[in-house]
């Protein structure tokens, strides 16, 4: 059915020579941006200092210091060189890897420019990026579970919000772990509703998702205004403490960044690995994906399409509920109205950006988390960049990916279509 979209030009234009030229221009534009925006506004003798010890860490790692301007020029030159080669000859199948390299160089140039004349805690930035990636990635994993089975889920935001609130209330009353469990169950409950609507009643899945989003915002704000505002003891769950992985957490630089986090971070890594393995290396995953790609064929082979979709959507809801609990039990320690602030939708974007793959989504989550973190940091540092534009970056990047400029993503073929068993 997705072939019915009124695409006027063949997709070849975006994958063939057109794409090669577009990417070349993108590389050159980034090189020009480094030179025009960063290098030209930097004085010759300014020094960039990157601190490599995160706050509170004992280890003493030397700072990374260099004179800003020559480094910026070198990076701009390399980017321009890559762009020129891409424009003339093309990197072929390695284009995406080169794009990643150019993007990384651009980010490094940007950070060097921000830290010129002052110092920036690089380790702290990396750690914060990982932390910010947690809810985004969990949201994306929720989306992957649902959409790989053919059910579009734009209700991640609503499920997360409800999960956050329920986790805060139960966490305050019965302790953190009960709160976490309650948040997961709340997500599952909404997922059941979404599943019944979109699988049993064959409601349009976007409408169903919208219902859940409106309901979640309304209900959580209602309960918050009615009960939480007056009873602070209902909204004070505290947060999960950081877990130091013995041995690994003491490694300088890497240890505090990677191995000292709370339960949400490590669970996310676990879910990531599990979902990747489950989806691509088990019978369970093969069945789930077949239901999302070609439900009729799956049905013919004796796979219960409805049951599989119910299972996938409910698991997805639990994942979103878990991600929601992060906001209250893993980060802030209380529930605020509409506190997810679009993170569920960024998760949806990360899912698309990551091409419906768990690790791809994690990569996108890191990228978006980085933008998120940087926007918060820059506002504190008072840097001359409007943080709002950084916050826009995930959305713009997703639209570019969706437009097929940087390689088209491949959605599951039966995504969003209700399955109708024949002969009933």
């Amino acid at each position, binding site marked *: *059915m*997705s*072939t*019915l*979209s*009124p*695409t*006027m*030009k063949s997709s070849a234009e*975006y994958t063939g020579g057109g794409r090669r030229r577009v990417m070349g221009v993108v590389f050159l534009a980034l090189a020009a941006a480094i030179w025009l925006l960063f290098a030209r506004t930097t004085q010759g003798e300014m020094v960039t200092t990157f601190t490599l010890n995160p706050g509170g860490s004992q280890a003493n790692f030397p700072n990374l210091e260099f004179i800003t301007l020559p480094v910026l020029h070198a990076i701009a030159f390399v980017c321009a060189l890559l762009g020129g080669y891409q424009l003339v000859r093309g990197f072929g199948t390695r284009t995406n890897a080169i794009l990643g390299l150019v993007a990384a160089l651009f980010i490094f140039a940007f950070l060097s420019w921000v830290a010129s004349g002052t110092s920036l805690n690089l380790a702290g930035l990396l750690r914060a990026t990982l932390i910010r990636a947690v809810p985004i990635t969990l949201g994306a994993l929720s989306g992957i579970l649902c959409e790989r089975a053919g059910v*579009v889920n*734009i209700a991640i935001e609503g499920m997360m919000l409800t999960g956050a609130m329920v986790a805060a209330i139960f966490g305050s009353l019965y302790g953190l772990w009960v709160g976490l469990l309650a948040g997961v169950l709340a997500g599952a409950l909404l997922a059941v509703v979404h599943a019944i*609507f979109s699988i049993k*009643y*064959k*409601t*349009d899945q*976007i*409408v*169903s998702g*919208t*219902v*859940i*989003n*409106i*309901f979640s*915002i*309304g*209900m959580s*704000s*209602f309960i918050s*205004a*009615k009960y939480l505002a007056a009873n602070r003891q209902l909204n004070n769950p505290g947060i999960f403490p950081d877990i130091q992985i013995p041995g690994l957490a003491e490694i300088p630089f890497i240890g505090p960044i990677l191995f000292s986090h709370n339960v949400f971070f490590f669970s996310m890594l676990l879910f990531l690995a599990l979902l990747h393995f489950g989806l691509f290396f088990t019978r369970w995953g093969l069945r789930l994906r077949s239901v999302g790609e070609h439900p009729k064929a799956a049905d013919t082979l004796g796979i219960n399409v409805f049951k599989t979709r119910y299972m996938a959507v409910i698991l997805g809801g639990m994942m979103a509920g878990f991600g929601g609990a992060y906001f209250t039990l893993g980060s802030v320690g209380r529930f605020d109205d509409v506190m997810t602030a*679009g993170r569920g*939708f*960024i998760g*949806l*974007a990360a899912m*698309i950006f990551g091409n419906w793959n768990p690790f791809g989504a994690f990569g996108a989550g890191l990228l978006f988390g980085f933008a998120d973190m940087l926007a918060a940091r820059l506002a504190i540092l008072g840097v001359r960049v*409007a943080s*709002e*534009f950084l*916050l*826009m970056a995930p*959305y*713009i990047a*997703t*639209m570019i990916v*969706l*437009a*097929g400029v940087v390689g*088209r*993503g*491949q*959605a599951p*073929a*039966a*995504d*969003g*279509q209700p399955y109708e068993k024949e002969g009933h």
Partner: protein
Amino acid sequence: MANQDSQSTPPKDKSAFGIFMHELARGSLIVPILAIITGLLLGGLIVAVTTDQVYTAWSRSPLEAIGVGINAALRSYSALFNGAIGNPERIADALASGEAAALRRAFNPFFESLIKSVPYIFAGLAVALGFRAGLFNIGAEGQLFMGAVASVYVGFAVKGLPAIIHLPLALGAGALGGAIWGFIPGWLKAKTGGHEVINTIMMNYIAFRLSEYLLRGPLQRPDTTNPISPFIETTAQLPRFFESPIRFHLGFFIALAAAYGVYWLLFKTRLGFELRTVGANPNAARYAGMNILVITVLAMSLSGALAGMAGANEVLGVNYTLAPAFSSGYGFDSIALALIGRSHPVGVVLAALLFGTLRNGALQMQIAANVPVDIISVMQALILAFIAAPAIIRTIYRLRAPQQQEDGLHVRGWGG
């Protein structure tokens, strides 16, 4: 997408209302009405369940608890009615006294409901127009923001024009701002197949961040650190018909005119026919030689322009300035509205009046009965749920299954 027009016999009465009644009469009139009633009943149930006195009464006897609960719900709804339409006693007193100020105060709630309906009418029309063309415009909220930004800028930055020029200019800027925000996903859809649902969601958040930036930078009021724009010139204000406190303004009639315009476009013009054909069956449209690219882009742009007008009306008619939280989710509620109104302008206007009335009355309900306004969102979600899955309503009320395929709504798949 619903294919209301493709296979049924044409209506005899060709007026806007005639077509609307014809579409409703095909077995679907009863469902929206029952959905609204059920939503209101469930809202009352939530009010009752969240009333503390119910539980103290429960310890004495369950029957008493039910009575207390029903009382609480009734009290809330009467507060809602008073807040939305007006307090009957006060209206009677005001009529008896005949004093102008008292009359204005007594009738103010009714007019406030109409004002609250204006952005709903525009945004609902925006989503409905998209539905008719087979496009799911989930980005009305963002388009509304961009419309508001554009019109507030023209409203305060352009000085010295007479109102007859300035006001249309500001309104046009609002429509243009929204149209641009609708054009981009429309163009992406037509040109690359990028799904408009994802793109409009992304455009929403880009619009939020952009307006935050503008309100902290170029559009900020000079004498404050708050993110708020300067007041617009009086020449850009939509004229009000009564003295304070009644804020009823020209926008309401512009909204009705827009509804008629959308009806005329959809059902009386060639473009509207092509638009509905593309929505009902893009393959047929392609074989008939229609330019799907142009129609898709045009439909999204028009949809965005309507949503932009919703934002412009809030700025030029009610607030006279722009602050970040000026929209209480009009864009998202409008999806519900368009579905309840069966994507027909008449239906949208009626549903918008209902939503505007509920929203307005809810404020009074919060003050008088201590029920948070957010209950309205919950009720809207419930109503939308019942409309979207008519089978639920049919099961609850044991209605017969429809003769023909039910007018559901289906969006074509992702990706492309």
